[in-house]
């Protein structure tokens, strides 16, 4: 009885996992397809990768996506961390209001955020392009950083900062030497979320960009009308990049721990 239940669970999870990974595997396989077909695998070839690397719009979109993601991550991580620390020391009313507004970009449908920014930028007369795209990405990334740093600040022993002051550290020294190292995991995961949010964003970017500044998502959307296996090559590259980033983020702390342990034992 119990055994059959376990097997049932296993089969169910297996089907779920296949469902989740089918498109990803499909994309990678067909990026090596020698034929143009999206349905029949004609043999192994790298022609779509070659095409992609020679397609300047594709290469440009990869460039923009990465540059925007890096800049947005950098700015939003710093700004979000600073704000989260400030909020943790603010009074309840101010904190409540800021947190409410902060939640808006997360809770609102992205399309609403997108059109709001579109109208806002054009009301200011800003030309749509790299700058507007970057500003929009910073705007929707900061809330995620704040959300991931705040719990770390909340679980921080409130006496830690006081202890640093007590031992002669100025508030700034207390911040740098005690608070920031303590909330580092929150900052790192905030940065990671910000990076992938920016890297993957489509809807908001779609509304606020212009003048040929496209990211990968927009490119896929506009190109999807025609059959173009280069998209599979592009997609595979994205999958590889994200996988590498995630692996690094997950493995580096483990390696570090191991290193420290061996050092400690020696």
């Amino acid at each position, binding site marked *: 009885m119990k055994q059959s239940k376990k097997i049932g669970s296993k089969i169910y999870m297996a089907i779920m996992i296949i469902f989740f990974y089918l498109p990803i595997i499909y994309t990678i396989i067909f990026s090596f397809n020698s034929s143009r077909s999206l349905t029949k695998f004609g043999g192994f070839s790298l022609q779509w990768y070659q095409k992609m690397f020679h397609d300047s719009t594709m290469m440009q979109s990869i460039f923009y996506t990465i540059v925007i993601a890096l800049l947005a991550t950098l700015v939003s991580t710093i700004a979000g961390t600073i704000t989260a620390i400030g909020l943790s020391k603010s009074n309840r009313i101010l904190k409540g209001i800021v947190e409410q507004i902060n939640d808006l970009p997360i809770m609102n449908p992205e399309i609403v955020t997108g059109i709001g920014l579109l109208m806002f930028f054009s009301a200011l007369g800003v030309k749509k392009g790299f700058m507007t795209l970057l500003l929009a990405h910073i705007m929707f990334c900061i809330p995620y950083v704040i959300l991931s740093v705040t719990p770390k600040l909340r679980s921080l022993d409130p006496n830690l900062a006081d*202890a640093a*002051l007590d*031992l*002669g550290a*100025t508030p700034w020294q207390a911040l740098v030497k005690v608070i920031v190292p*303590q909330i580092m995991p929150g900052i790192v995961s905030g940065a990671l979320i910000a990076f992938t949010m920016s890297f993957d964003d489509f809807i908001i970017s779609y509304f606020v960009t212009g003048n040929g500044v496209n990211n990968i998502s927009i490119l896929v959307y506009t190109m999807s009308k025609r059959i173009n296996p280069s998209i599979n090559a592009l997609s595979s590259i994205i999958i590889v990049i994200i996988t590498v980033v995630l692996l690094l983020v997950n493995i580096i702390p483990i390696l570090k721990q191991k290193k420290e342990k061996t050092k400690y034992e020696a």
Partner: protein
Amino acid sequence: MKKLIQFKNIVKDFDGQLVLKGINLDIYENEFVTLLGPSGCGKTTLLRILGGFLNQTEGQVIFDNTEISHVPPYKREINTVFQKYALFPHMNVYDNIAFGLKIKKEPKDIIEQKVQRMLKLVNLEDYAKRNVTELSGGQQQRIAIARALVNEPMVLLLDEPLGALDLKLRKEMQHELKKIQQEVGITFIYVTHDQEEALTMSDKIVVMKDGEIQQIGSPTDIYNEPINEFVAKFIGESNIIDGVMLDDYRVMFEDKIFDCVDFGFDKNEKIDVVIRPEDLDIVPRKDGKLKGIVRSVLFKGVHYETIIETKVGTSITVQMKVSDEKPVINTEANEKMSANDFYLDVSDIEELTEATIVARADAQAWNPDTEEWISIQKISYDIKPENGTYPVTFSTAAGTSVTVNMIVKDENRVINKEYQEKIFAVNFFKTADEIKESIALETDLKTWANASAWSLDEDTPVEITSIHYDFDPENITVGTYNVTFATEGHEYMVDTTDKYEVGDEVGLMFQPQDIHIMKKG
């Protein structure tokens, strides 16, 4: 000795809530001062004001002859051992202790020397490279002390530092802390809610309550001459009795006159009498200054804590009428049903609900084969708020029904003027089986008799602590029995080395110097 710290009329207001109401306190060099009080009394707030983590709303803090209210914490020559230690988890033991010295940019070799000396002081020489999160509570505690002392402060503040440790470790650390304080020779200000900790370690105890200082004194002063009821109760166990000071050295309580050593009160002033449990002795009844009955005995390791009742509380006796009425049987629906008559007070009728009626009549229906309960579908009754007998009928969906009487009678209360208490209970009907089957007889008796007691001045409920009955619940037969309910009377806690049995009739003995007189209020 030199005055080191002066608190002058410190007031602290948190969003309109007064946490400190004008604290005046002097602390001298090399003193071990304990701020003692229940949580919320303001002791930690006062400590945090001294540490510089809070600003007082009013008043001055003078440290070494200078006003320091506007000096930030990192410029004060004061260090703190925090609640739960607040060690920096991302640094090892050495770096934690060296933190303050590194901030001051002291040379590396000096830091090394000082840290080693501190590790020696707290007996953790080999732990320098350890991660602080791997240490036990007691070890973390020592590191926190070392981290504070390495900065050579003039004052060390300790905020309930032993709160997180277990009893044995706490005792060890109490001695260790006292030893460290004597060795480094600086002022320790210690915050705790544990009176025993305060008594063992302090040179001076400051008892606080609701943001005010109650009493300042040495441990012996505070223990032997508590200034009021709060201090007496907070510091150790004590018996506190209402009394009247007839004249110097003459006090009356329990309607008797006793000699005492206190004087300087007004004639016939109402006072509180304090007698510590260890100052009372149990003697044969005829020799006692007070006479009573042993109510309970608890073994406390070295001694027995014996409670002697000298005067019973407010009591009421009601009759329990035991019948052998059989349940109604409905063979057609295969149901059994039972209920009993019950008494009510006129004042109950207003708030009478069906649930109350079911509970008081103990109405139940069940399937005799499966023993499963069947819900009572309908209750029909008609009642007026005046004395009389009113029928009530319970029926199930299958049509089984039982009719019983609700008897309204308003002579069911006893008022005790002396205690300002009122107790209430009614006669009740039960079958022998119900009494035999009860799994918590005293609670059931209270429910069946609807017994309750209130204080007359405050209209708050008073607990009924004693229930007395003259039947054997295992072998009860049809008849009428008395059940007596009573509130707590005058009780004395006595520490004895001999074991007495509950119910022993004994006398209580004490000497004039065992009686401590406190002003009321």
